[in-house]
């Protein structure tokens, strides 16, 4: 009855399984977490070697300006979260705060791979993606502070907001997995209007166990929808380790069950994340259907600010501390000669300054007026409704993509390249 006691980060899968996905990684992590009993207490124990990571995998598609822009977003993400922690400790946050420490590279580089006409929907740790999509740090802060000026006017918290306008961002709900079919539907709606777009969202190693994940990925596969699903395998779902979540060593392998392509990346390598996501986005634009990307990384803090994560073996944290996505990217930029030490210090100072101003703006926003709670349950006449924009080619495109699966019944493993 007890689940398998071993948590093997990545390398348990047989080679035959690996043929079902593309693997961009330059290293395979070899460590094991074992559930054991020590001095009468049940604990997780680490075994393995704490190694240093290789350099980043050269992208070839990102130029200097883009890399520096990504780097700035990474700094903003991290420094913003430091400010959030600070605000929390000062009692200015309503409820908890969630962090993406160690996952910033994944949040930023994936969102950066989208075009402005694509859509995305963040999960709670993807605060960097909000910045890439054009929300300001003050929006993120006000949302946590439940202020009148927050994107939801205080009606919801955390990353629960969106914009059907230029930022094309769908608000998540707390229930994990339920964003995935909605993002498929975005592609369906756009295709009916004559456009193939990519719709990106993220899901955790925990969220991937929900029923709706499976329904939605299968649905997107059958309907050939441009879903770009980034599975953030950060080894923990709250306090539950990976091996108590699934028997599959590589979560990317699940894509095989839906007949769609998958890629595995090192989630602390910004360039791998970008390349995999950009490839998936372009496939979506070409009407090629969904892609699953498994990003292997580590949640470097507790589940939320209240959780000290005492259950995580310290060696595991040390292993991943050496794989800090921002430091790794910094080294890459240095080596390329794209970022001098001086320029880097200047940039950090500038972002810190900017963040203080954002924080001041967030603090200056009042709390909402209680009376505003009562309106807006329904969108009544006069409320803004979204108008579709049909392209001339809409029917043909919809018919071609929508019916594509009907002719593909013979195609075993069409994603194998």
């Amino acid at each position, binding site marked *: 009855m007890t689940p398998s006691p071993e948590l093997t980060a990545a390398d348990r899968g047989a080679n035959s399984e690996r043929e079902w996905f593309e693997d961009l990684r330059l290293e395979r992590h070899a460590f094991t977490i074992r559930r054991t009993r020590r001095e009468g207490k049940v604990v997780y124990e680490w075994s393995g070697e704490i190694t240093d990571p290789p350099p980043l995998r050269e992208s070839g598609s990102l130029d200097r300006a883009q890399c520096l822009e990504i780097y700035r977003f990474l700094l903003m993400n991290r420094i913003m979260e430091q400010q959030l922690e600070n605000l929390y400790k000062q009692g200015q946050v309503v409820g908890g705060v969630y962090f993406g420490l160690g996952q910033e590279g994944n949040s930023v580089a994936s969102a950066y791979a989208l075009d402005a006409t694509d859509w995305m929907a963040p999960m709670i740790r993807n605060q960097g993606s909000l910045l890439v999509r054009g929300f300001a740090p003050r929006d993120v802060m006000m949302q946590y502070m439940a202020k009148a000026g927050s994107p939801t006017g205080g009606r919801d918290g955390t990353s629960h907001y969106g914009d059907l306008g230029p930022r094309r961002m*769908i608000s998540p*709900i707390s229930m994990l997995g339920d964003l995935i079919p909605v993002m498929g539907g975005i592609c369906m709606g756009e295709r009916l209007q004559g456009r193939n777009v990519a719709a990106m969202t993220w899901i955790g190693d925990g969220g991937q166990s929900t029923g*709706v994940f499976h329904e939605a990925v299968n649905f997107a596969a059958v309907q050939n929808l441009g879903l770009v699903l980034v599975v953030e395998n950060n080894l923990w779902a709250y306090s539950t380790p990976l091996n108590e979540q699934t028997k599959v060593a590589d979560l990317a392998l699940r894509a095989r069950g839906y007949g769609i392509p998958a890629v595995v990346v090192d989630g602390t390598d910004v360039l791998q994340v970008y390349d995999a996501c950009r490839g998936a986005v372009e496939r979506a634009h070409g009407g090629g259907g969904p892609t699953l990307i498994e990003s292997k990384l580590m949640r470097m803090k507790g589940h939320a600010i209240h959780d000290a994560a005492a259950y995580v073996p310290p060696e595991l944290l040390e292993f991943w501390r050496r794989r800090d996505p921002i430091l790794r990217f910094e080294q890459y930029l240095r080596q390329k000669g794209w970022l001098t030490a001086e320029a880097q210090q200047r940039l950090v100072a500038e972002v810190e300054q900017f963040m203080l101003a954002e924080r001041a703006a967030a603090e200056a926003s009042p709390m909402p007026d209680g009376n505003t709670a009562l309106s807006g349950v329904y969108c009544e006449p006069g409320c803004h409704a979204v108008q579709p924009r049909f392209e001339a080619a809409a029917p043909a495109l919809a018919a071609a993509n929508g019916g594509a699966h009907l002719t593909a019944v013979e195609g075993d493993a069409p994603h194998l390249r």
Partner: protein
Amino acid sequence: MLLTYVDAIRQALAEEMRRDPAVFLLGEDIGIYGGAFKATAGLVDEFGPARVVDTPLAESAIVGAAIGAAYTGMRPVVEMQFMDFIACCFNQITNFAAKSHYRWGAPVPMVIRGPVGGGVHGGPFHSQNPEMYFAHTPGLKVVEPATARDAYGLLKSAIRDNNPVLFLEHKFLYRRVKEEIAEDGPAIPLGVAAVARPGRDLSVITYGAMVQLALETAQALAAEGVDAEVLDLRTLAPLDRGGIVATAKKTNKVLILHEDTRTGGIAGEITAILQEEAFDDLDAPILRLTSADTPVPFSPPLEAAFLPSAEGLKAALRRLARY
């Protein structure tokens, strides 16, 4: 055109799809097969498989996809093969769609339609009336027509509405009621009850297939000198409070009849509204006649014992008339 209730639904779908290219359908077996009850028969031939989408068997994915499409400006109409299966996508409806506009201002113009109700020996999983799970959820509209003309006109309004609308079709009525309906006829507004039979002595407030039972019983009681008014709610959320209060003030005696089970049924809510807004006008206690608080049983004699009956309604109305 003389249309049955289910024909009227198909007619409304076709006309709305012709009128507005944003309207499209998705559901299980709705295309070439035309739906389990043939509500969408032939529509795939006119509108093509991109707008009449046969989906995998996955209610959360179907409703989720409809929500996503609605965010892009489309107006999806989802068919639940049986409304009982709506339990499988409860989260998408109550947490995703219902709260969307309130939380972040994003409207979800979506209709979820399909057959509800008993009387056809469908058993515990093909006979339920799930309206109150949803009428209880702020942000949703819940509609249940009792006539072919209302099915047609209310569905048009539901499709044009900017909110998620649950459109409950009583399967007992699909082929049992028929009406003359003009092509491209008017939409009937949501949230407005209809007096299905005017009367002076007492009021039966009801909806769905129970409207038929109420009308037949009112007819029978007329011979005994009891003139019953029948109010067809048509929409359960938002409720027509004005229409409810008006009939109570007119007849001063109210019985609420529904096929849904008793505890937590809409009768309780209506009773509270009347206590608040028409207490001084009431000459009798408010009565309820509902299904029993059990799952819907399968065998015909068991189901008959579960459902409100003509005899039960007659007895209750006679009691009410004596006050």
